Every structure is written in C-alpha cells, then in structure tokens.
C-alpha cells in the first residue's frame, strides 16, 4: 500500500454556518480539512470535525444507520442522509454541506423537520382511525393477511427525514402542498384494512391543488429518497384513481 493510501486523502468540507439565535451572525460557508479514514461516512467526518476542530458545529443524528432520518442534509447538491453517504464517493475530496431547504433552520446543518412532520400529520390526520369496536383493548385485534402487512410495510419504511420535501421545488414554491411524505402516508392508511376512513375521506384530503393535483412531477422525491420509496408510482396511482373518481 502506498504512503498516500495508508495516510488517507485530505478531505475538504465546505459547510454552511449560521446561527439564527445569534443576532449578529450572517450565513457563510466555512472550509474544514480532515483526513479520510477507510469506510468514512459524512456523518463520521462531521462528528470528528466537531470533536477535534469546532465544537460549535450544529447537525443532527441519532441512529447512524439510516433508520432515524435525523442526519438529512444537502451533500454536494443532493439531499440525503449523512450516515449513508461514504466520503469515498467524492473523487475530488471536496464535499459541500448545506441544510435541507424548506425547513425552519435551527443552526448550521440542523433543521426542524419534526415541527413540519407533526404539522402535516395533524393536518392530514396521519394516524390509524380504528373501526368501531377495534379500539377496545380487551378484544383480540383482527388478524391481517401477510400480503397486506407486506404492502403496508413497504410504505411504512418512510423515516420522515424530510429529503423529499427539500428535493421538491413544488413544495418550496407552494407552502400548502402536502408533498411526497404526505401523499405516501395517506396511501399507507388507505391500504390499511383496520382504518375506518373511506376512500372518499382520503380523496377529499389530497384530491386537490394542495394534494395529488398540485404535484408537478418534478420527481425530486423519487430521485433522492434515501429509503427508495416508490413515490413516482404511488403518486401516479393516486392521481389516476382520483382523476376517475372525482370528475
């Protein structure tokens, strides 16, 4: 192994820095250099930077394994999860990090996706509405077929990272648009046989300009979703179904 390989490349991170809590602070890009280690992810590099160079650097993380969806940020123009992005992917060793656009900025790379997700869940009522009697905890829950469970699981994989919201120019332009995460979750509850809501109830929530007919098919959601959820097919399916039902 050459000396260069053993030592590892020097990576240059260009990171967006801004603390809205500081009255005199102004948004700026700050460069940091770090030695690359084998198997290093952007998340590992950021932790190292914070430990060794700048303890004031703000970014979110919890699980380190692409499950919690906390570490989403824009990495070299692509909104994605820092914990699932290997630094070796970038041949020139230059990595630019920006916070996800479209969310309230907490500071630097940290944004308040939780606030957005809560608001959308409350607005679209994204929780199970049990059928009458099903909410009795003394009764056995009706069994679900494995096929239905598998279908639900596919849509349930969303980690609410906010990537689809940031990658969607439609959502950035129209604040009231529910975005791919809203449509995906509605589709999930529509499939669930335990939910008391009728197809009509769901359609009145998203069968309009703020829902499926507001989507302009820019496909930022499809191309950037770190969980590879089938946004394009799902939205096309909802659109076709509703275009027939509502007209």
């Amino acid at each position, binding site marked *: 192994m050459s000396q260069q390989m053993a030592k590892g490349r020097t990576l240059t991170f260009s990171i967006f820095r801004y603390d809205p809590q500081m009255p005199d602070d102004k948004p700026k890009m700050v460069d940091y250099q770090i030695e690359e280690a084998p198997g290093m992810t952007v998340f590992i590099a950021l932790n190292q930077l914070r430990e060794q160079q700048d303890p004031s650097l703000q970014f979110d993380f919890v699980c380190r394994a692409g499950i919690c969806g906390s570490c989403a940020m*824009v990495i*070299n123009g692509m909104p994605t999860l820092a914990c699932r992005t290997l630094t070796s992917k970038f041949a020139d060793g230059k990595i630019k990090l920006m916070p996800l656009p479209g969310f309230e900025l907490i500071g630097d790379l940290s944004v308040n996706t939780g606030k957005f997700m809560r608001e959308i869940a409350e607005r679209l009522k994204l929780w199970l509405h049990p059928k009458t009697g099903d909410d009795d905890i003394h009764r056995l829950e009706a069994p679900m077929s494995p096929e239905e469970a598998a279908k639900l699981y596919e849509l349930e994989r969303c980690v609410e990272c906010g990537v689809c919201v940031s990658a969607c120019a439609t959502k950035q332009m129209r604040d009231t648009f529910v975005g791919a995460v809203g449509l995906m979750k509605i589709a999930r509850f529509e499939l669930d046989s335990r939910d008391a809501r009728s197809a009509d109830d769901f359609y009145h929530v998203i069968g309009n300009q703020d829902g499926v007919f507001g989507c302009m098919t820019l*496909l930022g959601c499809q191309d950037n979703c770190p969980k590879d959820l089938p946004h*394009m097919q799902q939205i096309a399916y909802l659109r076709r179904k509703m275009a027939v039902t509502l007209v």
Partner: protein
Amino acid sequence: MRTLTDTTALFKQKVASAWSAKADRLQSATGILLGCFLLVHLHFESSILFGKEAFYHVVQFLEGGMFSETGHGYPLLTSIFSTFLLVVVLVHAAFALRRFPAQIGQWRALRSQMQVVNHSDTRVWFWQLVSGFILFFLVPVHLYTMIATPEIGPHLSAERVYHDNAWLLYIVLLPAVVVHAMFGLYRVAVKWGISANRTGLRKLAHILVVYLMVIGLLSLGQYMMIGSELTLPIEPFRP
C-alpha cells in the same frame, strides 16, 4: 348532525376537488394533443428538404387537393385547423398558468432551491417553464399568421420566412416549442404512470429534441435559401 354551513363547505370542497382533477386532466390531454401535433407538423414542413415538389404535394394533400377541382386544395382548411389549435393552446395555457410561480416569493423559492439542490428533472421543468412563458407570446403570433394568411407552398412559405422576416419568429419559436413539447410529453407519461421506463423516456425526449431541432433548422435554412432566390412579387410554385 351536519349544519348548513358544514354542508356548504363540503360541497365547495367537492367542487374544488373536481376542478383540480379536471384541470390536471385537461392540461395533460391538451399537452399530449399539441405535442403530437408538433411532431407531425415539423415533419410536414421539413418535407421541403426533399425538394419543392415534395413540399408542394404534402401541402396539397393536407389542404384536401383531391377534393378540389383544380387540385390545389382549400387554404381555408389551414385557417380552420389553426383556429382549432389556437383554442387548444388557450385551454392548455389557461390550465398551465396555475403552475407558474406568479408571486415573486415563489420565484425566489424556486431559484434558491435550484441553487442548493442539483436535480436534473427540476432543471428540465424550469426550462419548460421558461419556454412556456415564451410560447404564450409566440404561438398566438404564428397561429394568427396562419389564420389570416393561410396560403402555404414552397414559394409562398419562403416569401413569408425570408421577405416578411418570419424567420425572426421561427428562430425563437422552434427551440422553445421543441423543448417545451418533448419534455412535456415525457412528463405526462411519467405523471400518469403511462410508462415506468423513465430512463428510456427521458433518453427518447433528448433524442427527439436534437432531431427536431436539426430538421427544423435545416428546413428553415432551406426556406431562407429559396426566399433569397425569389424576386418580388413571387409566383406560387407549380410542379
């Protein structure tokens, strides 16, 4: 029990939903119609590349030459069809307007998102937006010309392009309409799930843009050349 206000609100919501669905369907349907028409139209007008006679026969066929006594057809058909297309364009534009970032804040949000996020389909849509805006102004001019002076032929068209300076219109109209229509057809196909082969569709749209630009520019050059050789007043071409 539902109150009258609840019922009215529900009714309004239903009407709004139905209109949203209708608007999306109409925008797509008129877009498909116009995109397919463009594909055919550019091929017909490019028949000039095979010579004056080839173009003359295409025009006579489309103007219903076989049904006229002289065999020259009826230019009125061009006027009628152009009027129909103008109506389709107006419907398409009216429904597409709701997609425009009409407020300055929306425009800034779009531009700043595009600066941070590098996404090819968003860029393609942006160019569709720009070309759509250009087409608002140029398509009615082109269609009005065809409604008011529907006479088409190798010499008549060349006169329009060269002596009446219509090339100034076409040199901007051609790239705008080709980009808008081909990527529009691609978007409609993925939007309604007509095809799941997105990569193939996108490649096809790129190929068609290049191909239509080539035949469009070559035929425009041909009309310019024919026009420059004509002396005024021109004589309509007869084979």
